[in-house]
């Protein structure tokens, strides 16, 4: 069912966005660093949503303070990583050098072991999955 959901989501997304491909594309949006910049912006937004969802669930009594704390500790690291990536993307160094630095940032951050513990809380689970997926996509862009 999860696979089916992903397939439907992807179909909906492509159905909406692919008709726009008839327009000329901006060449400066096709570089790896532009893609990383896009993914990083999305990652920061998804991460903010995850933190907000965890806090909201704790305020409603759904999550304990301990559970919220572990989500927020990871979220804090992601936020720091996003800022480091933005800093690297501003650098004048060659892309190959910056890619190595960005790779090092995310090598420190593994998918959280508790990721599947909150699947019943959809806003939080979705935000966490979005964050994990975006980290993976950035990692692909900067892999050697």
């Amino acid at each position, binding site marked *: 069912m999860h696979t089916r959901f992903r397939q439907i989501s992807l179909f909906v997304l*492509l159905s909406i966005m692919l008709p726009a491909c008839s327009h000329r594309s901006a060449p400066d949006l096709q570089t790896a*660093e532009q893609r990383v910049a896009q993914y990083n912006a999305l990652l920061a937004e998804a991460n903010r949503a995850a933190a907000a969802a965890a806090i909201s669930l704790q305020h409603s009594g759904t999550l304990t303070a301990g559970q*919220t704390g572990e989500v*927020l500790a990871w979220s804090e690291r992601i936020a720091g990583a996003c800022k480091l990536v*933005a800093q690297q993307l501003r650098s004048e160094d060659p892309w190959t050098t910056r890619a190595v630095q960005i790779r090092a940032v995310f090598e420190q951050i593994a998918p959280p072991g508790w990721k599947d513990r909150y699947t019943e809380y959809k806003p939080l689970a979705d935000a966490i999955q979005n964050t994990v997926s975006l980290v993976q996509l950035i990692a692909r862009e900067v892999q050697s």
Partner: protein
Amino acid sequence: MNPTTVQLIIQGVNALATLTPLAVETVIRIRTALAEDPAFAQGFEALLQQAETAADDTQRMIADWRAGR
């Protein structure tokens, strides 16, 4: 960008990360689609600022939570 569009993009991103057999072709399509969306075709610096603003907000939110605010 329309919040619904953002959510759909993120769902597509999730699918990208896990549908391995379609990964290569799908990544190319998503990249092209992102480049074509005029709302998302922001300047490079704007994207960096967006990331930093969201990250700052997150860190502030977490600090407030820890302080019991």
